[in-house]
């Protein structure tokens, strides 16, 4: 390993601009003559739009355009789509209702855009928006997914009777029922996986500009996948042909899934910019983001785990109702199905699993992938059941897990996933040791002396990353392939531009991708520029989400580097008048075996462009190669997280006393960055378990619509984390990478709730375990005792 190669904790190249305030996020971009757009949004969860009167805006200063959904519809643009078709049990396709960028006819959630005002300044646009009169006919709304399919529930879309999008299932129902019947013990849990608002710190933003001379549009957009945005806006919305639409995702301030999707706002900005022949800029305000960014999770689940007399898990049966909100967002259908139920075997050999998922529409903000996307929900099901099962059976939760671990690989689960490699016991043992598990009893007694309740909880999670083998996801209904591309452009002096279809919004690709190239070519990381996020520069790519950039994006880079090296070798052979087969390339040098002849990387690069000394009829001049890499399997990162909490029973407040994470991510390119990903993921998972809650009232008003009511994790809510790794190589990609971006968020909710329920002695508490929630739960438990006393 060189000082900056694979495995080195290299300090990040991109940091220089961020720590000096020179980052360029979308809102930092200013185009000459830009106008500001303001979206008028429905204040009602469900309402007919009877009439929109914009006449009073005409005299307002600065106004350049006011448009309604009706005008948008006149231009015959297509709808926003969900790009993954899930089939119901009966084989019928999911019921996707039309989703226009500006609602016409009916608003379906609070925040649904019904009109826009464009003015010279945002203040003017807002002032004018107050003069727009929208006449609504308010309809009954439904926000609770369990009530959405009830008889008499308000129908949200004609296309989806009973508000049902699909009734999907996986696994063997009969065999699972038999296992439950024959079980020595069945553990049953019912719970809600709480709805979350992603809250990347940079609110979404878009600027659209029309160039009348070429008839082309440019969109600056806070996006995790600019090419996919271009494809959807071109092919489905029909805004412009792909070659007339450029999408630039500059610095993006966090995504966590929420910036994968194609949203109405960027579409409307493009439409308005072309209509007005003026750049149109939109920057989401935080309270607006609560009403428009796709939310995450929101499952209601009943699950049963069957154990035999030896404590072996013999079956798992799960029913989940997934709330997808008012419209189907870009990947929403896949999250509670293929990204969820296929992970329900956890780290365990479970012979029979059956899972049913009902997806429903409600009058709420659309729900889609949020960090972990389906896998935190699956881990929560499995890890809560195993932990509670151990408590009910009176055995150690570590031992029960160990007894049921998958131990031989490859392992075919009963829910389609094929685990390729892992050593789950290694992570568990290391975590137990680092955490000082054996002295937990001592610490618990010490807490009790101070009137506090102490608890400990595990989460042995598994996830599927490296999305995804294209033919496989195609069979499952995906509308796209999930390969990745890379292009390595070698300059004549040997420095490199690396173009990737991945996109960074915090992951540090400009450093880690450079590490990979630098090590391979024997150059410094400063000689490698990583180019991403611009459809005019990078030919195509699928973007960054699902912890895929290492496993898939870097594999494409390796493939392109293979081609570069092969060609460079051919050229070097000519330059040194040696046989290609005698050449060795190492540490940036081509040497001829058995001689003292050698050429440096830069000399060969120059030779490739000078092209004097090789037959250009056989070898083309120049040195530039591209590759598309399609994974052959998902990757399966896994690990063990242990959370220890102390609860103040008087106030219900939980303090996390310590956190141990031992993860197997396969090959690690930059351990500093990987640890950072774990920290951030755990913080989001702790947020879900302790703080974050998206609350709608029965009328569909979002009660938690700003940071005044939606609790974001702060520094003093969290401990410092103990983070370590174990290693098994991922066999399905050239570098052996599994992926690390979501692990913390996947493991943490179950670990926290296992610790809290361990401390308070009841399983009957839902997330978030806020102080009030814990206090009220303790009150319920104590009440009969008090009555007896």
């Amino acid at each position, binding site marked *: 390993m060189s000082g900056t190669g694979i495995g080195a904790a290299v300090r990040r190249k991109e940091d220089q601009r961020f720590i000096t305030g020179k980052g360029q996020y979308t809102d930092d971009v200013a185009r000459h003559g830009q106008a500001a757009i303001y979206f008028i949004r429905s204040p009602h969860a469900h309402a007919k739009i009877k009439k929109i009167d914009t006449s009073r805006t005409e005299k307002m200063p600065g106004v350049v355009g006011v448009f309604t959904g009706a005008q948008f519809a006149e231009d015959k643009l297509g709808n926003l789509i969900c790009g993954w078709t899930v089939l119901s049990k009966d084989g019928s396709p999911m019921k996707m209702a039309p989703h226009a960028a500006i609602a016409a006819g009916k608003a379906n959630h609070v925040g649904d855009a019904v009109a826009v005002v464009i003015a010279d300044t945002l203040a003017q646009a807002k002032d004018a928006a107050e003069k727009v009169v929208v006449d609504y006919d308010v309809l009954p709304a439904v926000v609770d997914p369990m009530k959405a399919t009830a008889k008499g529930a308000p129908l949200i879309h004609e296309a989806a009777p009973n508000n049902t999008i699909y009734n999907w299932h996986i696994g063997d129902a009969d065999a699972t029922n038999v296992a439950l019947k024959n079980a020595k013990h069945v553990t049953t849990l019912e719970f809600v996986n709480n709805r979350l608002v992603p809250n990347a710190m940079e609110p979404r933003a878009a600027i659209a500009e029309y160039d009348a001379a070429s008839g082309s549009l440019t969109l600056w957009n806070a996006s995790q996948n600019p090419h996919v945005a271009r494809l959807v806006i071109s092919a489905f919305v029909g805004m412009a042909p792909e070659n007339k639409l450029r999408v630039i995702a500059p610095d993006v301030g966090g995504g966590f899934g929420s910036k994968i999707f194609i949203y109405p706002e960027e579409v409307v900005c493009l439409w308005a910019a072309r209509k007005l022949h003026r750049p149109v800029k939109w920057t989401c305000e935080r*309270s607006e983001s609560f009403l428009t960014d796709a939310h995450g999770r929101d499952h209601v689940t009943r699950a049963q785990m069957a154990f035999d007399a030896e404590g072996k898990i013999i079956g798992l049966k799960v029913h989940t109702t997934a709330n997808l909100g008012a419209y189907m967002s870009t990947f929403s259908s896949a999250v509670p199905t293929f990204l969820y139920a296929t992970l329900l075997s956890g780290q365990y050999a479970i012979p029979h699993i059956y899972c049913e998922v009902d997806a429903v529409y409600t009058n709420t903000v659309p729900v889609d992938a949020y960090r972990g996307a389906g896998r935190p929900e699956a881990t929560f099901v499995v890890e809560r059941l195993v932990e509670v099962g151990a408590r009910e059976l009176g055995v150690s939760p570590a031992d029960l897990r160990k007894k049921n671990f998958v131990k031989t690989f490859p392992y075919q689960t009963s829910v389609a996933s094929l685990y390729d490699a892992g050593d789950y016991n290694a992570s568990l043992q290391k975590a137990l040791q680092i955490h000082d598990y054996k002295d937990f009893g001592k610490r618990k007694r010490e807490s009790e002396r101070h009137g*506090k309740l102490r608890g400990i909880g595990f989460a042995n999670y598994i996830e599927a990353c490296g999305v995804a083998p294209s033919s496989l996801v195609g069979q499952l209904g995906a509308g796209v392939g999930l390969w990745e591309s890379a292009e390595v452009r070698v300059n004549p002096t040997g420095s490199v531009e690396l173009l990737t279809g991945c996109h960074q919004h915090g992951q540090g690709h400009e450093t880690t991708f450079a590490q990979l190239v630098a090590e391979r070519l024997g150059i410094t990381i400063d000689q490698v520029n990583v180019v991403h996020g611009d459809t005019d520069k990078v030919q195509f790519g699928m973007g960054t989400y699902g912890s895929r950039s290492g496993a898939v994006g870097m594999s494409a880079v390796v493939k392109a580097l293979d081609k570069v090296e092969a060609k460079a070798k051919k050229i070097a052979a000519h330059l040194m008048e040696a046989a290609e087969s005698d050449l060795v390339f190492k540490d940036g040098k081509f040497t001829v075996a058995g001689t003292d002849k050698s050429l440096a990387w830069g000399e060969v690069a120059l030779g490739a462009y000078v092209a004097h000394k090789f037959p250009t009829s056989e070898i083309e001049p120049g040195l530039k190669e591209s590759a598309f890499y399609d994974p052959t399997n998902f990757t399966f990162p896994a690990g063990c997280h242990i959370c220890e909490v102390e609860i103040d029973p008087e*106030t*219900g*407040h939980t303090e996390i006393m310590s956190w141990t994470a031992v993860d197997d991510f396969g090959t690690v390119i930059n351990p500093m960055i990987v640890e950072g990903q774990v920290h951030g993921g755990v913080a989001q998972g702790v947020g879900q378990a302790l703080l974050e809650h998206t609350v709608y009232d029965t009328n569909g008003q979002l009660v*938690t619509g700003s940071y*005044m*009511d939606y609790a974001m994790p702060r520094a003093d809510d969290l401990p410092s984390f103990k983070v370590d790794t174990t290693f098994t190589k991922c066999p399905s990609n050239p570098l052996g990478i599994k992926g690390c971006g979501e692990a913390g968020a996947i493991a943490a909710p179950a670990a926290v709730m296992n610790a809290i329920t361990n401390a308070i002695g009841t399983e009957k508490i839902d997330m978030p375990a*806020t102080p*009030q929630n814990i206090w009220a739960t303790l009150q319920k438990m104590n009440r009969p005792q008090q009555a007896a006393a």
Partner: protein
Amino acid sequence: MYAFTLHRPETVRQAAGLLTKNEDGKLLAGGQTLLPTMKLRLAGPPQIIDMTKVEGLTGIEESGRGVTIGAMTRHYEVNGSPVVQQAIPALAKMAGMIGDPAVRHRGTIGGSIANNDPNADYPAACMALGATIITNKRRIKADDFFTGMFSTALGPTEIITKVSFPIAKKAAYQKFRNQASRFALVGVFVAKRGSEIRVAVTGAGSNGVFRVPSFEEALKKRFSPKSLEGMTIPADGMNSDIHGSAEYRAHLVGVLARRAVADAIGKPIA
């Protein structure tokens, strides 16, 4: 933000004159509550009277048996003032618990008191310490000043100029934060001055800050957390929202009062 006209008076008299002339005028002190409200267009006062340049409204003075704080004195100044730390340590500490450090660099005592936000900290301190609010027109006892949620005894052209606190060494503030906003879900300030004991609660009451006579009576017998053991207040009249039911808030009043007394006598609980 709605458009407004900004006025920048230099004396209290000028500011009062502007309020007289503009019935819809609103004073802007530190702006840490008013500006966020205006940004969200929840308020749109057409006339804003900025108090930054007004002379004589800042500073902290010890005067005999009390400490007098100018209305435009910022929270960080009260928190860091050796005078306050010496005379009423609990008040200095409380000021350091308001908002966050950046907010404390801007927010003022006068603004906080005049707004009487039901979740603000200062009203509890004023009530418990028996402060006197001094305006350009009169002196008002804290007990008479806070008249309900976001409402005070201030007249339409009345401006707080100073707040005077009697010295109290045995006093403490306990705050249980709303996890989202970080405002007080419940805050309890207890103070003992001679034989007078006051317990004032913010955050919990649906009518703003209030005192708890039953706790005060109990503490008169013995100023110890034990005196409050098992005591609670009724949930009637408590705020209730997603962050805390009325029952939870009522319960926390008891818990925090005990802990505040423990702090005040120098024997903190955990």
